[in-house]
């Protein structure tokens, strides 16, 4: 099980829950589980999100494995200048 911290708009879409648990070994599995469990997250995830694993921010990396016990945070997608 992965503990996923939700931040910003994603927290609101998950009914205000700051943390949810899902079964996932990769970012892809994580996102598809979240979409299933929390339909309101689907449009936001489709629009683009980033996933931080142990402090490293991944913007598009479906196949990135999620090591057991790692800290996982779901963030809005970000871009710079």
């Amino acid at each position: 099980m992965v503990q996923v911290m939700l931040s910003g708009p994603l927290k609101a879409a998950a009914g205000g829950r700051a943390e949810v648990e899902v079964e996932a070994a990769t970012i892809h599995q994580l996102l598809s589980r979240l979409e299933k469990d929390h339909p309101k997250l689907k449009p936001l995830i489709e629009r683009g999100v980033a996933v931080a694993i142990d402090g490293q921010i991944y913007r598009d990396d479906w196949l990135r494995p999620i090591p057991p016990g790692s800290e996982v945070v779901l963030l809005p997608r970000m871009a710079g200048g």
Partner: protein
Amino acid sequence: MPLDANLDPRTHEFKVVGTRPLRPDGVDKVTGRAKFGADANAPGMLVGKILRSPHPHARVRSINTAKAAKLPGVKAIVTRDDFPASVDPSLRDVLYNVMAREKALYDGHAVAAVAATSAAVARKALKLIQVDYEILPHVTDVDAAMKPGAPILHKDMITENVEPAPKKASNIAGRHEFGHGDPEVGFKQANHVVERVFKTEATHQGYIEPHACLASVGTDGTGELWVCTQGHFMVRDTCAALVGMDVSKLRVTASEIGGGFGGKTTVFIEPVALALSRKAGKPVKLVMSREEVFRASGPTSSTSMTVKVGVTNAGRITGGYAELRFQGGAFTGSPVVLGAMSAFACYDLEHVKVVGYDVVTNRPKQAAYRAPGAPMAAFAVESVIDELAKKIGMDPIELRLKNAAKEGTKSSYGPKYNSIGLIDCLEAARKHPHYSAPLGPNQGRGVAAGFWFNFGGQTCVSLNVNIDGTVALVVGTPDIGGSRASMCLMAAEELGIPYDKVRAIVADTSSLGYNDISEGSRVTFSTGLATINAARDAVTKLCARAAKIWGIPADAVVWENGHAKPSGPNAGNFEPLSLEDLAKKAAKTGGPIAGHCEVNADGAGVSFAVHMADAEVDRETGRVQIKRYTVVQDAGKAIHPSYVEGQFQGGAAQGIGWAINEEYIYGKDGRLQNPGFLDYRIPVASDLPMIDTVIVEVPNPGHPYGVRGVGETSIVPPLAAIANAVSAAAGVRMTQLPMSAPHVLKAMDGAKGGGARR
């Protein structure tokens, strides 16, 4: 060496990385040969011009182009009707910004365009186009736009992320909340709590090269586009969608780019030029005037912010709260989310909360500007931190050190930090002679810290070994600040050959795989990573060729100092083969030798900076002058130190302009009053002192050499550092940007009258 091997830049002896060679595009750029956006021409080329709305908010009832079409020399006219009725939702706002639909939403919004045989004819034709406007009430101020009863831009705009969802449309696109703990609890533990409201005006990236492109669409529907952009692959994909072409049928070449700073990460005139060219069946050159750049390309947000921070007498920050209100122009997407995420990112806080509101107004759609959203948020937060330091009589760097984020700190935007360099920067700043230098009369010193994420992204690099042992490096990220030099350095480092044996070019969209935009301080990080991996791929192949020649297994060959060598005595005794030897034999040992890397580079390391500014205030006129300035920033590893320093200095200079003079000024009529370099005042050489730099190197574990992006962080601290300096010199806390003379004089007079002391 394995592809994922990381060198420790603190112990590894680099041969060429870290040196300061001349840039490969240098001679062309000092002799006038370099070709920028407006420097290309084509046979039979037409001149394109765009008609823009003079009204900040108006329904476009009809557009009559009949008279203009009859003018001799006019070859094509396009309006909203020449673009698809519907596009992918993610591109809708881009399309409606490129060419107004039902409504013109800001002064300068494009409504039609012509292509003609000369600029004079095109200008005349624009005057003959009749647009029937129904003028609507407008709003340009962020606070006014949020008020009930404000003119509504989009009748379908329901504020996102609010439960329950509002019933009525408003100008608030979304509410975004970040943080952890409960600031109210934190404030109860504080000895001092300061709450202030801050305002900043919109500023423009101010690149000296106006947007320019040359489009050519043939009768067979294939097209070519020459354009100054930070991302030609993005331009290709976006334009193909907006004008309805197959991506494969559009080839985009990135010209040399005359500055971007985020402002050239989207499209404005490119789809229009393509539509005109397709309609006219001739090449069309479209170049924005400086006035158009200001009125119709993206500045950053103007903001209104409330910040509240509590601290104990011992200097522990117990809680932080901020409400950020950013207007991002006529469409959703102000950088308030990034502002909210970065506002308190420098601090290790138990209780922190930031709420951001994304607001639309009748202004041009904002575009990314260097660390979008972060400088304004840092201005507000770092000003309050400075005020608290004075309240408890603590040195401002000391207060920041006591609360600085470090490895393992839970960031205010969620994740825990891994290896970061904020404390190193603060220590370096405190040690710097500038920090202890005496101040003159009417002078004040300000310090501020700043944070930026830095990004990676999709990157594709090819490295071709030429017959003479030189190397052609092919990248797909436009060079906006000397990156070709850094790429050559990294390739030379890996191959073990001299810098001048490697030549880097930026390939067009048909010659290389997709590359994300040169944005988010990503190029040296991600294109660098891809270049290193492409070089290592080439080395593997070179070793295999040597093994073939010697008739020994490939894994018995190692690469050292530009030569293939047997890995040891029992591998056999052979003369090392140089890159040149192997290149010469390539045809006979299996054909061309090339290294490649296709990667979605994630793992860019966040970075921090600390700036120091000395400001002098003329007490009789309010005029502010920056007398001394120092930038300290973590670069992870500086590949070409001169261009790292250049990024530090350039960001600081833009910040100085933002803090003191730059601002979008709108009249009551909703029209931009200063769309030119005369009254939109970017710093000139005589406004600035030398800008001292200190490069701190705390390696980024996500990059083989430890590189962190450096392009954006340098614009985050200046607004606050200068505001803190001016507040100290003027004896009154400055909470509004720009700190132009009338504002400062008024504030000082107010303070005399018993106003808020600093």
